[in-house]
């Protein structure tokens, strides 16, 4: 260590030693959970600015929580989107369908029918109401936990399952990990396994739409853990600079595999507040409140569509189940957390609301659950007729080389021919079903 002849290194001797701060979640396995420190403001309290207001005039919203559904199941306050009962019932149905789909596919993975699955249990109100608030031809750039977008857009579950099973009818030809869907027709951008890469891409799509004088907007989603990636920050910068017509959703479900949100900076500020530094409109919403998510998305969409620029929405929610089929949350968090989560179950909350306004009842709900379970089961049967991953290869071998380039160059043609010849010569060709 270099020493200053005047001060010398010894001048430091009476300084307090520095110490490194490493965040730690409140509860670990075995701990009793107490979420009383999580501030949940009353529904209806947070103001709703005019969409034409400058983002700098409502930075307070980045630190609050937009909530519509109150403890009695009533929809209250300025963010109440005042949806028709039919729409509410449709949203509820889609959310319940997502849960039924997840249950079934999770079990399929456990039965060895596919290699991998990811549920969004407890987060159904993040994607589903957003899908209802956006136009069908707006482009969504999701992460792997927004299967609700496809379900809410009425996309075929059989088609989704075909992808999960990598079977003969898989539109992605067995090339992608299960749940990494791509459905351009339903405005659902191809999912990447590399976190947050979709963020700047969504901004680029939105910029292109604006540059072409189109009317469509883009929306993207990432987890709170993923906001630490550089792509997130590049996306915010571009979105801000070009006032891109895009909605940047951060799904704060408290956990990134085993790392709690503190490792993405949650102890210092909110994720919605990321927007403030970029001069983007930031909103923090109760992510378990379908009406709040709908209202926030509709508001952000209107801002985007009227050239007011991007909005960043933090969805405050909780990942009720494991990260994926490879994960055991019991290893790192208290078992009590999912049930103690103060914002409740998003499906139950919307159901209670519909019942409270006299548009639904428990019997109909139970009947619907049964009907949805049957619907998913039927879809599964149909998809499994096209094969399951557990039964080996379903795609013709040579399709391995399709889609690397538009036209196949000589070296790939050569490798393709080599592979087919070797497999034929081997006597144990892959074409077993």
């Amino acid at each position: 260590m270099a020493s200053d002849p005047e001060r010398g290194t010894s001048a430091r001797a009476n300084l307090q030693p520095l110490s490194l701060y490493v965040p730690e979640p409140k509860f670990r396995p075995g701990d009793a959970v107490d979420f009383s420190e999580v501030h949940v403001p009353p529904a209806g309290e947070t103001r709703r600015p005019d969409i034409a207001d400058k983002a700098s005039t409502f930075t307070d919203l980045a630190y609050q929580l937009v909530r519509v559904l109150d403890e009695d199941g009533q929809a209250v306050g300025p963010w109440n989107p005042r949806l028709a009962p039919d729409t509410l019932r449709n949203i509820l149905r889609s959310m319940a369908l997502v849960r039924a789909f997840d249950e079934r596919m999770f079990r399929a993975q456990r039965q060895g029918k596919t290699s991998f699955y990811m549920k969004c249990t407890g987060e159904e109100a993040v994607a589903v109401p957003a899908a209802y608030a956006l136009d069908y031809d707006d482009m969504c750039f999701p992460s792997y936990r927004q299967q609700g977008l496809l379900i809410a857009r009425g996309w075929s579950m059989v088609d989704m399952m075909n992808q999960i099973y990598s079977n003969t009818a898989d539109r992605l030809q067995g090339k992608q990990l299960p749940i990494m869907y791509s459905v351009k027709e339903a405005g659902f951008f191809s999912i990447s396994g590399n976190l947050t890469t979709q963020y700047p891409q969504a901004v680029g799509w939105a910029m292109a739409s604006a540059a072409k004088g189109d009317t469509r907007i883009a929306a993207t989603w990432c987890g709170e853990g993923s906001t630490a990636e550089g792509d997130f920050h590049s996306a915010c910068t571009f979105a801000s600079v070009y006032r891109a017509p895009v909605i940047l959703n951060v799904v704060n479900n408290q956990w990134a595999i085993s790392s709690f949100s503190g490792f993405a900076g949650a102890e210092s500020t909110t994720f919605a507040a990321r927007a403030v530094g970029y001069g983007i409109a930031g909103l923090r919403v109760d992510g378990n409140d379908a009406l709040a998510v709908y209202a926030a998305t509709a508001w952000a969409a209107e801002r985007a569509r009227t050239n007011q620029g991007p909005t960043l929405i933090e969805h405050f929610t909780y990942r009720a189940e494991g990260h994926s089929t490879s994960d055991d949350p019991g290893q790192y968090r208290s078992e009590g957390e999912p049930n103690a989560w103060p914002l409740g179950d998003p499906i139950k909350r919307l159901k209670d609301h519909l019942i409270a306004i006299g548009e639904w009842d428990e019997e109909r709900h139970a009947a619907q659950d049964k009907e949805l379970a049957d619907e998913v089961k039927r879809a599964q049967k149909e998809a499994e007729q096209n094969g399951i991953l557990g039964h080996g290869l379903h795609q013709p071998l040579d399709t391995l080389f399709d889609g690397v380039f538009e036209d196949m160059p000589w070296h790939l043609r050569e490798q393709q021919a080599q592979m087919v010849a070797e497999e034929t010569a081997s006597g144990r060709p892959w074409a077993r079903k």
Partner: protein
Amino acid sequence: MNMIQAINSAMDVMMARDPDVIVMGEDVGYFGGVFRATAGLQQKYGKQRVFDTPISELGIIGVAVGMGAYGLRPVPEIQFADYIYPALDQLVSEAARLRYRSAGEFTAPMTVRSPFGGGIFGGQTHSQSPEGIFTHVSGVKTVIPSTPYDAKGLLIAAIEDNDPTIFFEPKRIYNGPFDGYWDRPAQNWSKHPAGEVPTGYYKVELGKAKVVRPGEALTILAYGTMVHVATATVAEAGIDAEIIDLRTLVPLDIDTIEASVKKTGRCMIVHEATRTSGFGAELSAIVQERCFYHLEAPIERVTGFDTPYPHSLEWAYFPGPVRIGEALKKLMKD
């Protein structure tokens, strides 16, 4: 020990010996890593020395450069090699050149651990073998073990080494060696001599290859999972091949390679990474430059195909015994 335990043991040994060794990465702390490679280390050495990081590969490596400059020996984990790309700039432009550009004033003595390779149905983003990208960069070392014994000894050597090292762990053989037939029962390291791993300190020197199987008919150059696939294929084919486990790609043990190919006159190179501009191309050029007059047949490369890693077609992509066997026949034809 299996390979994960050996890797864990290497970090344990080094953390106990050297208070400057620290471990960081996504999920490595309390949870002990998604593959459990860092299990128990935080409990033993505390949060100041073993901690979770934000999900920011660029941040992880950039911070490790700064820690190295301070004088620590960070051992950052990149959860899957497929996620090393966001960190490329810090690795390639910064860590790799710090010593050179500061004339030795600053160095970045880090060991970046990362599971790599396919064979676990991980799809495109949990299966890649990006070693060729790093061997192409001047200033980083690239190490790939194929056994628990080597994994521990090489990791200790890498942590002690004063240069930045990329340590790729073949995840397909974390739990046991693998003969390339995906549908055969899994093997276990406990029955393999290289599964016997001392609990204490020992080193396997960087830059030294290992002759896994001595032979006269041809030389097979391989590393990681492919060492085992090649060994099984050769046993099945009954060919007297000399199999060399390279163990470190940079620095490369040129003497062992040269001596072997000059002896056998034939050379096959096996890796799982895509073919074009892969490390096999470099090996092939080196062998051609140094052993041309001894070669009795063109050099054979057996590699992954030049496509992204496909999910359900994984075993068609994987350079298994069928592909290696065909190449063996071709190489031994005349």
